[in-house]
Each structure stands twice: as C-alpha cells, then as structure tokens.
C-alpha cells in the first residue's frame, strides 16, 4: 500500500529507496517512512453530500 509523506524540514533530503524529496514536497511511496523530518499525509475520505445520495426507489418495504 502506498502512503504519502511530506518533507516538513527546510532541507532537501535523500531517503534510501525513495530518492530525493525536496523541502516541503510530498512523496508517494511504498516505503514506510519513520523519520521526524517527514509527516504522513492522511488520506481524507470523501463522502458525497447528503442531498446527492439518492434513495433506492426499488427498495421493498
């Protein structure tokens, strides 16, 4: 599973198996980055607004 990480430091950092990640940039990688200069960018779940959820009219009561 790929995760997105952001380089929160002010330096361009080279991460083995990932490559160069410039300061402030995000990278999508399968490598689990456990480094205090990187912050995991959590995936935001997008749920459709309520009014767009159409009711199933064929549903049997």
């Amino acid at each position, binding site marked *: 599973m790929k995760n997105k990480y952001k380089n929160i430091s002010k330096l361009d950092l080279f991460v*083995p198996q990932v490559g160069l*990640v410039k300061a402030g940039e995000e990278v999508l990688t399968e490598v689990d980055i456990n480094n205090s200069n990187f912050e995991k960018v959590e995936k935001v779940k997008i749920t459709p607004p309520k009014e767009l959820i159409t009711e199933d009219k064929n549903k049997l009561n």
Partner: protein
Amino acid sequence: MNYLGSKSYLAMIPEVTAGVALKPTTFCPLVSESIKSMLNYNADRRMKGLDWKSDDLLLGDRKHEGDIVIYSDGDNLGHLLNMTYLKGSTTGDSDGYTHPFTVGSPKSYTIEIQKGPYAQRYFGVKADQLKAEFVDQKMQITASIKATGQFSASALKEALSGSVTSLKLSSAYDLKPTAGLVAGDVITVVGDDGNGVDLTLLTVDADGETLTFASTAITGAIGNRVYLKAQTPSYTGIVDPFFLGDTLIGVGADSTSATTNAGAKSTATGMYSFAFTLKNNLLDASASGSKDPLQLLPQTREAEVTTRRLFETPEQHLAWLNSTKQAITMISTGEEMTTAGTHESLSVKFHKVKLTTNEENLEVDSLIFDTQTFEVLYDSSDGSAIEISLVNKTAGTAY
C-alpha cells in the same frame, strides 16, 4: 527474514543534559560499527545443593562501548569531534561555518544504529578515543565510544487487550526499563497474532516503566517483544571525505612554522601515511545510582601521531636521538561548498611533538623511509597541545 547490514544507519544528536536521551535526527553513512553492551553476567555461585556449577546468571557491571567507523566528511566529522573535544564559538555563515575545537569537556550524544527492524539506541555517548587515518586516499575516522545506557528491546510487563493507551515494560533488564526512550519515538509491540503494532509515544512516564500513546487496539501477553522501531534515514547531501591528496602536512620547529609550511605544497612534507589518535581516557566506573557507568568523564588526555615519509637526511634520526621538539600542522581541504569557492576544511595543529620511535628499515629494492611515532606533548609556550578547526556547512547550533 534476513537483514542486510548495508541498509543500516547511524543517527546522532547532541544531548542537552548529558545522559538524557533525545531522538537522533542526523544520519551519517557508516563504514562499520562494533558497539556492544557488556552485561558481564556471572554464574550464580551460591551453594544451593547442586553438583552443577550454577543454575542461574547474575548481572555484573554493565558497560556499553565499541567502535564507529565513518569516512571523514566535514559535517559528520564535526559530530565526532564534538563528542571528543570542546567546541568553541562557531563563526561564519551558510557559505561556511568555522568550528574551533580544543581539549576540553565534550558534548554527550544519543546515537542510534539500525539492526534490521529495530534500532539500538545508546545515550550519554562520548568518544574515548578518536583515530584519523588515510585508507586508500580517504580519511577514515574510528571513534571508540562509551555510553551510559542503551535502549533497544524490552518486553511487556502486563498483558494488553482491546483498545489501550499505555503499556508497562518489564524490569528484567533494568528497574527503569524505559530509559533511552523519548516522546515521539515509534516502538513496535508484537501482538499475540505475531504482527507488530507501531506506536508513537506520547509520553515516557517518570516511573520508568510506563509508556503512553494514542488509543490503539492490541492484544499482547506478558513477555511479548517491544522494540524501538528503526527510523527511515534521510541524508542532506552526503559530501566526499577529506582525501590524502588534498591534505598538506607541515612540519616545523614550532606551530607557527609548521602551519606556514602546511600552507603550500612546496613547503609541506609529503607523507606516505599519516594518522593521529586522540585519547580522552574516559572514566566509566560504576557507581551508586546506575547499573551502567554513572557518568563518563575525561581523565588525562593524550595523543599520538604516526607518519611515514621518505628518508632524506639523518635529521629525523637525530631529532629522535636528541628528543627535539617539533610541531606538525595538517590542513585537509574538502569539497567546495559554494560557488564563491569556499571549501570544507580541517586543520589540526599539534603544537609540540617528539619522536618516540623513528625506524629506517632497509628492504631490498626499496627506498629508505622514516617510519615515525610521535608523542603529542603539551606546549607550555603556546599554552596548548592540540587545536582543531573545521569548516563545513553545518551551523554551530547543530552541535
């Protein structure tokens, strides 16, 4: 699963309070490492009605020591010098910072070395000895370090079930088993299903055994493994080490003339090999309050220089016979840091050296060499034995 040593890292950070661990964030490429913890277990020889030597082991004085070998690039060398000698005020800016080092109390470090999935963390680290030598052109530094404690792996003291926000570590190794951990560390707890659960520590309790973290579902029995998860290293532009070819070594009657001689290739002495060893002779005795060395304190400092140069006149032979004072200055120029032409550099001044051995061995078909060992002495007239100056692109605040 097997793990390749080449994938490991060395991470370092200077401590604010000696012996109190911090999370190491400066990563340095390793050449090799052989640090070990010596628990000094002895067989329990109390008479227990057995016809066998012993039925258990008992702990002795614990020590943590060994060698770190790196190539000496300006930035990482700074950290090893900082754990050996006292850094003075840094001058300069991002075009080149100059860090002076003199004989004095070194900074204490927390270092971490990856071993596969876990990291071995040592804290209260100081260099007992620092050796610089040129191996196939490259300056290689061997730092023989000692530490006042370690954290690597532990076990659950109490079972975990369901969503939990804290755990306790077993006191089998130490009564305060969390020593070395800090908030922000990631630890892995092996659950009953054999899978590791990563936890980011929120706090390390003052009771020395409790760790807290955000609510997480774990099922784990007493004794399950808990280890410090290895970090993913990140490097900020690894520079080349200092090379013998870019090093000028000046020898003179005193430090001023040695430094002048080191200023140009025409006046410098061509050394076929050059190495120096700085020793701190750290006190690492055990004392009340800690099963590990309570503190590491430098005792008498000493240093040695070994060289190999072509024999030309009996000058060095006489200097050895008569115990004549000499001085040596080594200036290594490293990579260019800015387009303005500022280079990394290392200058080491040995103010007063005298030959303890000067061998001129003969071998068929070979030119005669002076193979020399110098004792580095304190120069009362200069009020100094050694002075080191390092120019690199790391700000003084990093040390």
